[in-house]
């Protein structure tokens, strides 16, 4: 089923990190955290060798899905992360996930075949967090075993790895900041870790 009815009233919707927003401090903070809350997250499965599937998705998103491992494509507010050879994470505008899911299913159906796909709304199960600042590099070193040096983690690259003792899908942005996808049930742990690890740099929640 789809979930397109989103009531934006704050007492109805609570993002995974909503109760940490009050934790602002440190004017010249070395780490800045921004929760890009309530974005639409869709998990998409399909066969990239199937030209009809790829064309159908491209017609909805306005861009081709990335097929190069660990890459991303970003157009007009749509972001597609490559997760595995037949799996992508689509991040769309807040509340748009229901329509995008319906459009994807329709576009694939319109191709006439019986393409094997899956579209799953996971918007509520995870959240998108942006981390930036002068302390970011060391913060990431403390938090993940992945080598986040520019030479190994350039802009646009998508990595599925560990963040402390939880998992994350992270993407380097052009401005040097990092987008992290964090599972909702681990978000309190994530924040506790983040607050602790960034203490020496100062943490600001934007």
């Amino acid at each position, binding site marked *: *089923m789809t*979930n*397109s*009815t989103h*009531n934006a009233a704050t*007492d*109805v*919707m*609570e*993002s*995974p990190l909503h*109760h940490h927003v009050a934790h602002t401090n440190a004017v010249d903070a070395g780490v800045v955290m921004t929760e890009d809350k*309530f974005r639409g997250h869709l*998990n998409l*499965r399909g066969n990239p060798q199937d030209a009809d599937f790829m064309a159908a998705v491209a017609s909805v998103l306005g861009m081709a899905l990335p097929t190069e491992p660990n890459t991303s494509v970003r157009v007009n507010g749509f972001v597609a992360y490559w997760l595995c050879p037949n799996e992508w994470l689509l991040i769309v505008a807040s509340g748009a996930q229901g329509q995008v899911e319906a459009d994807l299913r329709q576009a694939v159906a319109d191709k006439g075949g*019986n393409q*094997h*796909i*899956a*579209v*799953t*709304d*996971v*918007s*509520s*199960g*995870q959240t998108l967090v942006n981390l930036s600042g002068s302390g970011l590099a*060391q913060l990431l*070193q*403390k938090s*993940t*075993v992945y*080598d986040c*040096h520019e*030479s*190994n983690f350039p802009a646009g690259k998508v990595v599925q790895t560990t963040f*402390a*003792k*939880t998992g994350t899908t992270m993407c380097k942005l052009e401005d040097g900041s990092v987008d992290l996808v964090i*599972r*909702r*049930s*681990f*978000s*309190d*742990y994530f924040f*506790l*870790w983040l607050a*602790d*690890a960034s203490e*020496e740099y100062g943490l600001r929640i934007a």
Partner: protein
Amino acid sequence: MSQVNRLATGGRIDRSKPMSFSFNGKTFQGFDGDTLASALLANGVGIVGRSFKYSRARGILGHGAEEPNALMQLHTGNAAVPNPRATQVELFDGLVSGSTNGWPSAEFDLMEWVGKIGGKFMPVGFYYKTFMAPQKMWMTYEKFIRKAAGFGKLSLEPDPDTYDKINAHCDVMVVGAGPAGLTAALEAGRSGKRVIIVDEQNEFGGTLLANNQTVDGVDAATWAEQATAQLEAMSNVLVMPRTTAFGYYDHNFVCALESRTDHIGPVSASGSRQRLHRIRAHQVILATGAIERPLVFGNNDLPGIMLANSVSTYINRYAVVPGNRCVIMTTNDSGYQTALDIQAAGRTVVAVVDSRHAPDGRLVQQAKAAGIEIMTGHGVIEAQGSKRVTGAIVAPLDAAGDTLTGPGKTLSCDLVAVAGGWSPVVHLSCHTGSRPVWQEDIAGFVPGPSIQNQHLAGAVTGDYKLSQALNAGVQAGAAAVGVESSHVFDCGDESEGAAQALYLIPHTKPISRAPKQFVDFQNDVTAAGIELAAREGFQSIEHVKRYTAMGFGTDQGKTGNVNGMAIVAKALNKSIAQTGTTIFRPAYTPVTFGALGGRDVGVLLDPARHTAMHPWHLANGAEFENVGQWKRPWYFPQQGETMQQTLNRECLAVRNSVGILDASTLGKIDIQGKDAREFLNRVYTNAWSKLAPGKCRYGLMLKEDGMIFDDGVTACLSDQHFLMTTTSGGAAAVLGWLELWHQTEWPELEVYFTSVTDQWATCSFAGPNSRKVLEKLCTDVDLSAEAMKFMDYREGTVAGIKARIFRISFTGELSFEVNVPADQGHYMWKKLMEAGEEFGITPYGTESMHVLRAEKGFIIAGQDTDGSMTPQDCLMGWAVSKTKSFSFLGERSFTRPDTARADRKQLVGLKPIDPTVVIPEGSQIVMDPNQPIPMDMMGHVTSSYWSECLGHGIAMGTVKSGSDRMGQTVYCPQADGRVLAAQICSPVFYDPKGDHHND
């Protein structure tokens, strides 16, 4: 007190920054740049501790990581640090230090008399031999031994400091910033590649800092400063002083401990005290240097007997001469440098005693020219003194150094500097499994072949000349980054005469009768002890190590091992190469547990997973239970309630009106694809082909062995779309299981799985009034018993939110589950609480859920099953389809004789004969309580609760042939002597016909 041994000029200390510190309660002065050891020596402190076994007075032997004696107790209260080596402790103003042992003090130690009297009765292996019998007395012996021996003490209070860890990656990791490490890092750094260089000391330079040679015409220490500055200026080079690479693991993974505030004060004012660097390097360059060896002679452990190279280091780097009248005992030319250094410092060189008969090297000539007395072909056979060396007995040796050729004479002195040759620091190379190789020409072990991307440079290879170290560093650095370099350093004339391989200097008496000749100072292992071990039949060096304790302790035999191996070899009539060496393991020097733990402590030890409704549970006083990593409400006590009272109230609310449970933690897997049904047919025991959209079904999942692995309800959302639920703890394992079978065995099935556990928040509310609650919030679904039956699924709007509504029950009551996207889960919960208020809706936790389901005989996979139970064992044969066209996982195993036999344990209900009794879970079940031990164990109790609605205890348990024993009485003997009787019955205690959930 004055610094009696401090030189007026020279050294790398800052005399403008005096520092006050205390040792064993007395206050002393030192300078910035001192180590605790150099400051103690500057103040003429001789005794720094007492030995482990014999309680002998011990002084400082070395100047670095090799130090076996000067273990300190630092700081006080909760900041106490046990066992750092004074040679590695940087002095700061106000430092409080003390010996780790000695009673009542290290200076005057009563235990020494025990050691002296008992010494001859405490041979090697003494503890093993004496205290192991009778075994029951060991605990008593141990207390005495621990008090008498041992080193520093930890505070019992929590550590006030924090520690953290960081991951680092580089192209080239250089271990050691002595001459070889510096040139290696410079060469690698110039390539632009990512370089990390670590050194344990506060300053880079290693031996360059205490060396009077020149490098390309520049004073060695100045050259080191310039090289360090060049490295610091390279943005691609990370320069880390005070950082010890303590472990070298597979795939060039190096762990290094950075001491961040230990040199500033007892407790870190801000930030972590120590940081563990987990470094992954493409290339590793080991430039770990070499450690000088002491020589083994009588009473060679007296305070005032030191390594010659250490004496030179104290003079040149710290401007401290640790004695006035010095005898130098050497087997090679390097001892002469120390003689020259002592003389230059204005103190007396009594004599250089050289075991060689005709030394004629450059330094020997210099010493002769300087008028220093040289006794060739002699050895120090015994030191004299009690609390400090007062004399050295010197006797002539034959050319091999094996036999005395004449009488001894005594040289009066207060310092004996010993130069017994060098041992390359092979420790790190050993960590990766490379066995050191004995190299006869340098009389030392060097690193063996390595399978790592590892390079060696400098003294670790057994080449001790400064220019060679610098040049080898260049070559290693160039090789590590794949370039060529031809730079050659000039350090002037470095020629040396040949060294003699000598380890144990003979005494006039045989080893067993001579004064104690120490090999391993920290563990009080003597030459006699090692000989005894050989006599008692220990031939493997690894066995000798464990029998004598040689090479144990915080210094891991850095000074003593080679001497010990040589003595073993001689006793066994083998060569050292044949005897071999023990293997060094991490850590090179001790590492705090704090650093190994890092920040993974307290709330960060293990992630706590929370549901969207967690804030509500917290605000409403829930007690929590850990289910996997989830924090689930366990029960919701009200003021003044006992836990049982709470459970009774919660259970009755469900049976009589309505209760609500947060079921969000159940694993949820979204399954899409045209072969989804077939896939379910194969992984579940029951049939899924005919499950219509809008319907749910309970399923049992087995492993290949036919044993229950997980269970749950799966709903058919549409013809090619299903939602599977799993147990809270089993979600990840089930998803992995599905992917495993799909990817490896049935890739032809068109089906995709996606975890949606976190996506959906689940409010489960149960009880006769549950429909009324839902009807208040949901108007677009016909919720009547006729329209929405038990095990039906509908999509609808609840409290204005699009929701998935399931009519399923784990309580046996009329029950609904409302799933909404988790962003709205907290809101939905609150709306249901509001709507249920008029019915007294009662939140309940996992414990009441357990009681309610046990009243209905519903199993919990993992509690009532343990991986050895089939569906038939659980009397759930009804959930197994025998008509599926394709087999299902586990089916074949049903026909195994063991799985098919009739007398397997089966899960049955147990009704206590005494209705007030609740049988403890885990109780063993027997048929005859009077049977003599060993009794026939028939099974055990898996679940047991007080049922308030039934008014008696209920239990489930496994019993052999249980289904054939209905009505029989079984017995549960308890540890306290009670025997609890129960009657075997159906596990469905409540509403056996299922009227309630079908309402």
